[in-house]
């Protein structure tokens, strides 16, 4: 697997993961990165900075909205929050992803021609 293809693949996936991360409530970029990092091995594949274009893209598409606020340790941070549209998008993408995984899985599990 070359790096570019993995990134291409990851871009869509990253959007989905970011939406999922935000589905628990509003959080800033670092929290999203940590949340994803703790639950996957993506950290080995993706730099943390890659998250930000994903966040901004989602904002442009109206899936999230942002607001500056203070983090728990009193630092200024930009908080992101899902919009109604983002929630719908998340639902749609999750179901799409599941169908995709099961379809690909079925093929890969087939033993014979």
């Amino acid at each position: 697997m070359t790096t570019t293809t993995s990134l291409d693949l990851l871009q869509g996936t990253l959007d989905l993961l970011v939406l999922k991360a935000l589905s628990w409530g509003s959080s800033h970029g670092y929290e999203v990165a940590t949340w994803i990092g703790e639950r996957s091995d993506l950290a080995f594949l993706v730099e943390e900075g890659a998250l930000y274009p994903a966040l901004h893209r989602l904002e442009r598409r109206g899936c999230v909205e942002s607001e500056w606020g203070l983090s728990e340790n009193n630092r200024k941070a930009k908080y992101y929050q899902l919009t109604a549209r983002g929630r719908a998008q998340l639902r749609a993408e999750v179901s799409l992803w599941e169908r995709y995984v099961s379809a690909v899985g079925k093929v890969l599990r087939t033993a014979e021609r």
Partner: protein
Amino acid sequence: MTPSRRLFRLSGKEPGPGEDVAAEFEAHLQHKTEALIRSGMAPDEARREAERRFGTLSRYAAECRVIDTAERKERRRREWWEGAVQDLRQAGRALLRAPGFTITAVLVLTLGIGLNATVFSVLRGVVLKPLPYPESDRLIKLYASNPKDGWPLFSVSPADFYDWSRESKSFHSMVAWTASQVAATGMGPAEQLPVVSVTSGFQAVTGVAPMMGRGFAIPEFEAGAPLVTILSYETWARQFGREAGVLGKRWILDGESYEIIGVMPKGFEFPIGQTSAWLPFHTPKDVATQRGAHYLDVAGRLAGGATVAGAKSELVTLAARIEKEFPKSSANWTVDLRPLHEDVVEDARPTLILLMTGVALLLILACANVANLVLVRAIGRSGEVALRSALGAGRGRLLWHGASEVLVLVGIGALGAIPVAVFGASMIRRFAPEGVPRIESVRLDAPSLLFTLGVTALAALLVSLAPAHRIGRVDLRTALSGGNRSVGTRRGLHRWLVTLETAVALALLAVAGVLVKSKLRLEQVNPGFDPSSTLTASVSLPDKTYGKSEAIVQFQNELLRRLRAINGVQSAALAFGLPLTGFGYSSSFTIDSVPVPDGVSQSAQLRLASTDYFTTQRIPVVAGRGFTAEDRRGGRPAVVISQAAAKKFWPDGRFLGRFVRVSAQPGPDDDRPQGYVVGVVGDVRERGLDKEPRAIIYGNTEMVPESYLTIVLRTTVKPLSLVAEVRKVVAAMDPDIPVSEVQTMEDVVRHASASQRFRAWVMGFFALLAAALAGLGVYGVISHIVAQRTREMGLRRALGASDSQVVGEVVRSGMRDAALGTAGGLAAGWLIARSLAKLLYQVAPADPVVMGLSAALFLGVAFTACWIPARRATRADPVIVLRGE
């Protein structure tokens, strides 16, 4: 949008995308560093590790900035649109709350825009649209030209035409044609139809092929060839019911049977105007002898690379050679030419430009009125504007807000203008004077609609300038604190509106006045005959049955006998060519067979008249006698001359008994008008009421039998009540002879001044509309000023000023502004009228009576418009006014 962001937008500058992203990334790095330190890393190392895990900072920042910039742009556009729509909706609601204002403004704009669209669609259809031929800009109209004798643009003789078309290299092809009326028979009642005989260049010059069948073949132009015809689409549809098998059928025209060989496509016309069918022009056998007979129209298509100037110089050289070769017939004759399009639209252009000027001025008035109304509203809302401004609304936003009402008004006005323009165009089609080319094709089409849109945009711009001007000057403190009570003398724009409206209205009144006076003058002209109670109708005898002169003479005499027997006919006569109809020709002639010296022109207008013609038309016989029963075929030949001819050619007064012989005329030699002068009759305005009478020689209808004759009846009853009788008489003699051009002589005279009347009516209508609009405008301005000064006036009345003093002051101030406009308006009117000098008859562009009356009329309107609102102000009780708000 979140509330906080909205606050952001209002309270100041948003941070640029760059700063925002940098801060966000820094926050991330700090959080990460802290977390790493907490897990036991040294601070320096922790920061480095955080940066390593983050990746290439600059790359991600750039990516985010691109996304953010795009997002911002989209958001701004969306917000702008939402705001704009909201403003429009608000404007609509506000307009509904002020129906009086809205209806007035919309009506005024509808009228202004609609009339502009109407006149533009006429201008486009008649003047601007290219002619309906491929590469029509290469088509040129050619004229024989004899400026020395006063014929700068004259018909062409066949001999000249054949020489030109054979020898000219500048032309790809040339066509000559002559139009005539023929009787179509064999298909119901005989019908008179306009046909055109064309030479072989017809197809090459027009560049249009028949839709069905074929064009003319070269042998078909030979004299004696089998007769063929090509139909117009309209004839095919109307006369033949679009029958597919029409080709090869025969059609009887003037008693001759023609084979139908083709049908031209829909909308094809050549020349411009209605033509029912085209026939081949049969080359005369004696072409060479016909150099002096000018009766053909000629057009040509320029060869590739040739220019109009080049073609002209080539033909002028050619004409000089012909002149040298044939000094008798061609002395002083040269060539002139101009683009066919110019030739077609020439006469209509000044009228249409005049109308366009008129409606443009009307639109300015309409805009000025609406601007004033909008301005008054804007002043009434200064408080609201100031409030918005204080809350941080930008200047652009305020301008848009102010303009949104205007846009709604102009939009509705433009929609309303479309039916106005459609109606207007149909009115113009109906009432335009005869002879306006292509008038029947005038429609409100896409380009005219586009023009209307442009005009609308311009109107909106002009009108919205008014409140914009206010917004620039709103003084926040005054507007917010004191309402409008303290508005002082800053009414500059208002007063200018009064001046402008006065000027425009007066300019139109003056121009219309001059045109109306010209029309009245023209209608007072004595045409030289008495048009009352006179009926005319034309008959044309088919050559086949009446080819022999004797047959024509017999028909004439029998016709006259039967016409005289009709009850209600006082006297009856026949003529070849009626005055003021444009029909007839002029020719050179000899006196006592003395050859006219080379280089001298001796020519007159030719007419034929029967016994009783002069009594019937009431043209006075000044000397000698008119035609009588003794002037018959085979008798001593006689001619009658007009006073102008007597004065011009026999200044010694010894004209009686002199022998006059017309030298050139198409037709057999014996039948040329010739004879001894037996009498002199009064002058008749031949070519137009505004043209001085020319020399006329009258031949006798019996001695020069023509197959086309016009019946003239003086009646003791209403002339048109005899039409059926006349038709019956002709049909009883020969059912194949059509009766056409039935009209009274009064109609003929009316026709002759139709253009003048049309211009006078339309401009008069525009001028009255302008006066009304301007009056309305002045009324509006003064009402507003009075409304603003009610308190002041109340105060002054409470302090002892009399009503008339207060009224007088308001009226005086309004009239001062109007008087200023009067001077400008009269000057503008004079300038416009001066450019119309060619259209005026015996009226100076600066006619003092017209100018004085126009000024008096409009100042009267302005006075009334000032006085009514001023008067109203004095009715209010000063106590109430002073106490109230």
